[in-house]
């Protein structure tokens, strides 16, 4: 090879080298462009929470990791920002240089999330703690457990310590209250508890009855002891010591408070599932759920702005229809799911959700008085829901569905619910039932009919789950009615006749037979005994 040739080759190779570096440069530019979209935001620990972070990174590393992944961390909202308490708060205590409270309530969250807090406070979710006065509560507290602790009847080993008393409220505390919310309680030095009822907090959340605070039991670190009957608990209607209701962490689990998680059915499904209100199961059965499972990866669940019709359209989740913003409503989110619900499917007999200014359902029947009371009609609520539907479905489709839905609810109401409620009410009125609830079979029968099967049928209809509407729903309602409720009532009436309550029994019997003679029940023929 001549020198000339060599030099020429070097020249060419040099330019090839240049070319390869141009390719490198192109690669760099592409990579930068990609990364600009993908770069993770990073946690910023505000000074106030630096000490918390450093210690808890050792003590509870995963908790800290969760926070690091949150938007709060991105924006510099740390531990103290949420946990800070004020002097005078019932559950506040000094902890490593900060005055904090363990339980963060919607009042605390509302300091920054004002609109959400207000909407939530007005919602039925926040009222979930009201179960404490209801029939369901008796079932868990008395029937399943015991309202007063009782002694064990034999020596039994337990994993830790020794067994001295049986806590009869365990079923309520771990069952009902974990969804509905507990009444947060501080333990007292004399073995009792202090709740919001004792503290009577003012509008600033601080107790007005301070005498009760003197009895609060403190642990060796000076921390007020949260009674185990009520904590841990993130029930959505939790009755907090500061007078606020609920827990935002019920849906926005801590400590990353992920909206992504709250958008998915599983978040709602912690509570909205099971034999008495299987909304999650119905969703999964329905076409909506099928679409969601298939196209979950296209749902843009991580997006900050999550508006149906703009950021995603693949499928709806619970949040999509009941709470999230959509294109047609201007992307407005609501933290009050009741805003879009036209029937309440909870009570034995479903009624339309005409609500007054206090968000309570109007029960007044006189049309004029009713019209005066109703601030947000069931029709308006339905229109809001239909607004969501209309992103994917045409008006005919939507209206046709709502007719089907209304028909099912009305069928249930008129054929079973109202008659059944009337029968039970009559039995009570005529003293044909004992005073305690749930001590007679017919009470269970009626309860299961409306509370379990009846609700399943109605919910199944509301969310297009045919199997729940029918086989898990109306079929079982009918089975319960025809094979259990009516025979049990008739048997009870027969016994009553022989027990010297003939007139009362006859009056109720007239009601029952009158119901069973109605066209819809006639197929079952006359009484068979």
């Amino acid at each position, binding site marked *: 090879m001549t*020198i000339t040739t060599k030099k020429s080759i070097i020249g060419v190779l040099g330019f090839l080298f*240049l070319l390869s570096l*141009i390719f490198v440069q192109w690669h760099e530019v592409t990579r930068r462009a990609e990364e600009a979209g993908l770069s993770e*935001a990073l946690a910023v620990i*505000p*000074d106030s929470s630096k000490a918390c972070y450093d210690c808890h990174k050792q003590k509870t590393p995963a908790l800290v990791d969760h926070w690091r992944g949150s938007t709060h961390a991105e924006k510099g909202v740390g531990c103290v920002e949420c946990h800070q308490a004020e002097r005078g708060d019932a559950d506040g205590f000094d902890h490593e240089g900060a005055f904090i409270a363990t339980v963060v309530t919607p009042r605390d969250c509302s300091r*920054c999330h004002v609109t959400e807090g207000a909407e939530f406070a007005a919602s039925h979710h926040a009222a979930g703690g009201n179960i404490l006065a209801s029939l369901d509560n008796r079932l868990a507290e008395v029937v399943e457990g015991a309202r007063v602790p009782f002694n064990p009847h034999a020596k039994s080993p337990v994993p830790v310590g020794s067994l001295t008393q049986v806590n009869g409220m365990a079923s309520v505390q771990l069952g009902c209250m974990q969804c509905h919310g507990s009444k947060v309680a501080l333990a007292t030095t004399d073995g009792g508890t202090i709740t919001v009822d004792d503290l009577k907090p003012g509008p600033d959340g601080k107790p007005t009855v301070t005498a009760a605070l003197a009895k609060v039991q403190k642990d060796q670190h000076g921390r007020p002891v949260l009674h185990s009957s009520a904590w841990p608990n993130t029930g959505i209607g939790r009755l907090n010591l500061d007078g606020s209701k609920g827990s935002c962490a019920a849906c926005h689990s801590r400590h990353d408070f992920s909206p992504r998680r709250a958008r998915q059915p599983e978040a709602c499904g912690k509570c909205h599932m099971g034999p008495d209100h299987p909304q999650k199961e119905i969703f999964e059965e329905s076409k909506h759920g099928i679409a969601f499972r298939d196209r979950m990866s296209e749902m843009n669940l991580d997006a900050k702005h999550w508006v149906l019709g703009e950021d995603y359209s693949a499928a709806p989740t619970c949040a999509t229809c009941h709470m999230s913003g959509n294109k047609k409503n201007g992307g407005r989110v609501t933290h009050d799911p009741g805003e879009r619900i036209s029937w309440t499917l909870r009570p034995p007999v479903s009624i339309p959700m005409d609500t007054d200014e206090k968000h309570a359902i109007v029960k007044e029947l006189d049309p004029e008085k009713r019209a005066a009371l109703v601030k947000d009609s069931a029709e308006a609520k339905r229109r809001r829901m239909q607004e969501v539907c209309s992103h994917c479905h045409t008006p005919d489709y939507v209206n046709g569905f709502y007719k089907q839905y209304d028909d099912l609810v009305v069928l249930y109401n008129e054929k079973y619910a109202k008659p059944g409620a009337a029968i039970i009410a009559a039995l009570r009125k005529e003293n044909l039932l004992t005073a305690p609830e749930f001590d007679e079979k017919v009470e269970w029968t009626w309860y299961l009919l409306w509370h379990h099967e009846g609700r399943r049928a109605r919910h199944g209809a509301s969310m297009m789950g045919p199997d729940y509407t029918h086989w898990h729903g109306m079929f079982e309602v009918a089975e319960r009615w025809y094979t259990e409720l009516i025979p049990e009532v008739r048997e009870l009436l027969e016994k009553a006749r022989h027990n010297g309550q003939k007139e009362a029994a006859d009056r109720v019997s007239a009601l029952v037979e009158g119901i069973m003679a109605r066209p819809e029940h006639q197929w079952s023929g006359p009484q068979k005994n």
Partner: protein
Amino acid sequence: MPHDAQPTTPNPADGAGDRRSFLTKSSTLLMAGGLAAGYGTFAHVAGRFLYPAAPRAKTWMFVADLGNFAAGSSMKYRTPDGARVLITRRDAKDDVSAFKALGSTCPHLGCQVHWEPQAQRFFCPCHNGAFDTEGLAISGPPKDANQSLPSFPLKVDKGLLYIEVPAASGEEV
């Protein structure tokens, strides 16, 4: 491969000599060009590598909710970069105009200023620069140069105060 042991003397009588010397010259040029192009670009890449990255994007960070920020009070804030900012609320208006965020780096040569309550001014110990409550220089070299303390943009959104600062990069631990 054939190799010329000695370079042939170009004979002006035949054009071949001219052609050969042209080729020789242009091959040298080509070589020089190729080497410069290749290694020169590599040096450019190394240079870009060494030069510090461009300033990062800015982001809005949460400071406080207005209910917790009394009128007339100040709050110390630290940016993700570690810079110290003093945020003051002048009055009770729930508007961003009630707030001021001043950085504590002296614009003269970069020392840290501190607040002197007795003189109601920010003072820089390096060359005795001083600034008023608005951050405007009132004496010393910064006054001569008509400088002020750096000011950070603020905004109020839904009752919450935010400050605009350079975004964090790398592990913020």
